[in-house]
């Protein structure tokens, strides 16, 4: 453990030193300071009527989110983080594999230990829970619960006797905790309906404390912080017995490091995900490789057109061609608005506002997914894009042609379903689709500008902030145009002006991107 402690210490010190040299750290600190200050100023509202049950409810709610899911990830051999540097230096070294896994687990605890201390302080100062009770809770959480989870992590992750099948069974047993919780909530609803008693029944009742492992934790929390009952005493005894058994098993377990093979795969996947994230692409599911079938395209033209056909070929090889989850969400959003309009069609107030819901939904979805970029961004990172002998404008247009077509189709999916009940004219439907294409297009060209002009100068976060700012202004201009059009004439002019202003704004970024599309900055 000496070497591992050294590793942790030096990495932490060097990271802090490096962070202090970056101006962005001070901006973050300023934000955190402001946030804490605001929180301190508003905290008295929450604690005006301190309630012990509310505090226990908070603890149990946090446990619901953490404990079963943590166990599932350990059973899947994914909960602990290993990097390729660990595979290189740590795994072949004479540090025992069980020590390696314990170290990996301990690294995940720091943030949780801080949360625990915050909970203790909040419990004492905010909820006026006696100090001795909160200290007992602190000792229990850090001393017992973390040790128990660590022991379970060691067994589930590193046991060489557990087969894949038994791991899968454990995984489903952990999921069944959620099933039990849903069942308890349902029973509560049947008994008390939508009332505060249901919450009490769910969080503080006996049933939750009878769920094995997770419920026993809830029982201990109730025993420590509320009052002793037969159920929570039995639950606490079960917890302690379980603790002793699991801790002993983990300590005695033989492990030569067979889990390294899965950890190696995890490290590879993680590293790949990190690389993608650095380039501004969010990774939905780590370790999932894209599947491609076979396809052909009729290549036409030369130069930058090759970029278009290369993308087309790649899309043709994928299962759903250019259709993706985003389009499904837009379609469902449109259907929802359409259904609402069907039921609320007699309400003139709703119907006057309804046609604007669609562009708002489109803009909102584009905005919240601002950090996610599509396949086309790989073109910006490829040196071949810049080496192809063609004009910068042609290259930019070819690279972004398919994304723009995709966005127009997505816009139509957003505009058409709702139009049946909203009774919007075909021209408004088309303008709605174009408005979506323009907002999404602004995101595309904003990203292109960020990539070719800014590169890594302000880091990934800074670049994403820049892109969001570009997008915000686009939406701002669009809304301005819509208001103006509505004021002057009506809905059609509102959409027309909205689209024209957004087109003009987006064109600025097309020009900036084109002027700088000669070199690879990122």
């Amino acid at each position, binding site marked *: 453990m*000496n*070497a*591992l402690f*050294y*590793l942790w210490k*030096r*990495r932490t010190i*060097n*990271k802090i030193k*490096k962070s202090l040299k970056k101006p962005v750290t001070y901006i973050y600190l300023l934000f955190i300071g402001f946030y804490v200050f605001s929180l301190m100023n508003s905290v008295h509202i929450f604690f005006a009527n301190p309630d012990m049950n509310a505090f226990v409810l908070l603890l149990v709610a946090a446990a619901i989110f953490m404990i079963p899911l943590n166990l599932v990830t350990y059973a899947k051999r994914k909960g602990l983080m290993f*990097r*390729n*540097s660990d*595979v*290189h*230096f*740590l*795994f*072949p*070294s*004479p*540090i*025992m594999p069980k020590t390696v896994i314990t170290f990996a687990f301990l690294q995940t605890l720091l943030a949780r230990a801080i949360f625990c201390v915050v909970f203790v302080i909040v419990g004492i100062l905010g909820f006026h829970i006696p100090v001795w009770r909160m200290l007992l809770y602190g000792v229990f959480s850090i001393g017992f619960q973390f040790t128990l989870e660590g022991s379970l992590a060691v067994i589930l992750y590193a046991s060489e006797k557990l087969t894949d099948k038994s791991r899968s069974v454990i995984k489903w047993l952990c999921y069944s905790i959620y099933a039990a919780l849903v069942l308890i909530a349902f029973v509560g609803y049947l008994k008390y309906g939508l009332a505060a008693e249901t919450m009490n029944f769910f969080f503080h009742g006996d049933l939750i404390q009878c769920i094995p492992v997770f419920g026993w934790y809830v029982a201990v929390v109730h025993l420590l912080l509320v009052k002793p009952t037969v159920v929570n005493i039995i639950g606490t005894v079960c917890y302690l017995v379980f603790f002793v058994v699991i801790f002993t098993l983990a300590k005695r377990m033989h492990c*030569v*490091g*067979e889990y*390294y*093979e899965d950890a*190696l795969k995890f490290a590879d996947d993680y590293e790949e995900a990190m690389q993608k994230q650095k380039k501004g692409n969010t990774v939905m599911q780590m370790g999932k490789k894209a599947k491609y079938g076979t396809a052909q395209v009729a290549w036409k033209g030369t130069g930058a057109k090759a970029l278009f056909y290369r993308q087309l070929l790649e899309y043709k090889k994928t299962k759903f061609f250019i259709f993706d989850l985003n389009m499904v969400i837009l379609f469902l959003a449109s259907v929802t608005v359409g259904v609402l309009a069907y039921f609320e069609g007699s309400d003139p107030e709703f119907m006057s506002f309804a046609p604007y819901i669609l562009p708002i939904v489109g803009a909102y979805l584009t905005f919240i997914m601002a950090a996610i970029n599509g396949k086309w961004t790989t073109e910006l990172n490829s040196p071949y894009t810049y080496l192809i002998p063609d004009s910068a404008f042609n290259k930019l247009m070819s690279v972004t042609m398919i994304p723009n077509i995709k966005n127009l189709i997505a816009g139509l999916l957003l505009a058409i379903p709702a139009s049946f009940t909203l009774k919007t004219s075909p021209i408004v439907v088309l303008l709605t689709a174009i408005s979506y294409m323009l907002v999404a297009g602004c995101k595309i060209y904003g990203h292109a500008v960020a990539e070719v002009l800014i590169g890594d100068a302000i880091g990934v976060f800074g670049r994403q902030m820049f892109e969001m700012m570009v997008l915000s202004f686009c939406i701002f201009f669009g809304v301005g145009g819509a208001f103006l059009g509505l004021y002057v004439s009506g809905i059609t002019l509102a959409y027309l002006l909205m689209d024209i202003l957004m087109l003009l704004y987006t064109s600025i970024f097309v020009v900036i991107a084109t002027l700088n599309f000669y070199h690879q900055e990122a």
Partner: protein
Amino acid sequence: MLEVIKVTKKYGKTLAADNVGFAVPDGKVGILLGPNGAGKSTVIKSIAGLLKYKGEIRVDGKPARSYEAKKVFAYVPELPFMYDSLTVREHIEFITRAYGVKVEEEEVQALFKRFELDDKQDKLGNELSKGMMQKVSICCALIVKPKVILLDEPMVGLDPMAIKELKTVILELRDSGCTVLISTHMLDMVKDLWDVTFVMDKGHILGTYVKENLEDKDLEELFFKVTGQTEDSAEPAAAEEE
């Protein structure tokens, strides 16, 4: 001594190594040769304890996964991965602590000087070029004074000076009784170093060649013959067939 005994490794239904067996005696340099996809990396990773496998691997007479074996074993992977926030010097410090070896500062400095890292000691892992990372990786392996060392494509990314130095180091290790196993594609790079060569393809060892038995036969020619990459493929000459 490094012994690989009937090692079999499957990835799903794919058999990456099939009953692979070979041994590199003390004080000898073994070369694991094979075309892409031959199964070399699988064998190397199995020896380094990174993969599950069937069979047995022994390092200095002890099971490869035992503490005692790992204490005397060093590994230089094909792709070096540094800890981003550890300096070059701290990597060495970490490794000496992990292996529980006492190393004098002069030794560390001499090693750094040999691989031209003496002015890079305070650089962080993520500030190094690939070649520099490879040099740090080699230094980390050498600093523990191993009895068995495994080098996977060690020359890739190194500058000519470092390649020359590494070759000298390998010969010094051999002369001091250390067992060296090098996995490589680059026949030219190892032609002055090897004592025994294992040619591998499609998960099998096709032939084992001992330098002193080969007389004046060219290793490159033999490699192409045994892997069937020339028209006149033949049985391995002067080989101890597996």
